[in-house]
């Protein structure tokens, strides 16, 4: 296994987002893994529209009031919706009426899946190394006070937030995931945080989503 994988280093991760007052972490993380997979498969890194996902995704998602990664991806695939660029459908940080229902220009996903990988984090590391970044549901209650370092303890497992994992590092005493948050670059390590691998810390392996494009 490669001891250190960081998809940012090969330009497969867009800039850190700031969801501000909009509780659409589910849309941010879903779109972020699609952006990364487009960069991996097609060699083009460009921000896609989180606002389109926020406004248009159905199946129980409620825009800035909350939603679900799995059903967001299910909606994208089953409706064959093309996700347009963030320039074409920019962020407003509010839930608005869906403005694009039948765009043919943009990115469609070819497949998606969500797995429970508790006690199988080796597989999660495999996916990050050999497939690409993944989106996870996580308990971020403790993150209100986070400054930096590797979160190893004191984290609950009540899934209440969604993030993208863009890599891992197995070289130190404490192996950790590199987690991209959507609370701006003034949070944690320039918008990122580190979480220990191996003990389902913060519920990180409970619901792991992957896509292909």
């Amino acid at each position, binding site marked *: 296994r490669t001891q250190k994988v960081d998809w940012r280093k090969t330009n497969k991760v867009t800039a850190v987002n700031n969801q501000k007052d909009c509780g659409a972490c589910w849309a941010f993380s879903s779109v972020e893994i699609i952006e990364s997979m487009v960069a991996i498969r097609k060699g083009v890194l460009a921000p896609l529209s989180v606002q389109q996902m926020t406004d248009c995704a159905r199946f129980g998602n409620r825009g800035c009031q909350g939603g679900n990664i799995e059903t967001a991806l299910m909606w994208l695939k089953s409706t064959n919706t093309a996700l347009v660029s963030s320039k074409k459908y920019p962020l407003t940080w509010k839930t608005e009426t869906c403005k694009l229902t039948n765009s043919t220009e943009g990115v469609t996903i070819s497949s998606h899946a969500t797995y*429970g990988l508790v006690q199988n984090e080796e597989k999660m590391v495999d996916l990050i190394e050999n*497939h690409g970044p993944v989106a996870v549901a996580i308990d971020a*209650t403790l993150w209100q006070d986070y400054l930096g370092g590797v979160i190893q303890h004191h984290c609950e497992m009540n899934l209440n937030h969604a993030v993208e994992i863009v890599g891992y590092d197995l070289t130190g005493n404490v192996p950790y995931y590199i987690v991209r948050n959507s609370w701006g670059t003034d949070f944690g390590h320039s918008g990122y945080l580190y979480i220990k691998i191996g003990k389902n810390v913060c519920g990180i392996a*409970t619901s792991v989503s992957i896509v292909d494009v």
Partner: protein
Amino acid sequence: EGSKEYIFRMNVFEKSLIRHAKLNSKTVSIENAQFGINKFSDMTPEEFQVKFLKLKQEPAEPFQPLSLDLWLGNKPIATTE
């Protein structure tokens, strides 16, 4: 300064400092996370939750080795005598 809101936020902030001290007291190594003052320190945990923690996700089904291996490009090993 001196307003009702100011006093409320100051109290919330002071409670955050106590919480940080508790969390940091459990630090066992230098690799451990550090907790302290950030942009959320004048929010109550309840406000933080309502504003930022809005995922509605159930735990996923445990993985099926075969389907996961397909993502990783591994072909199933053929069974022979």
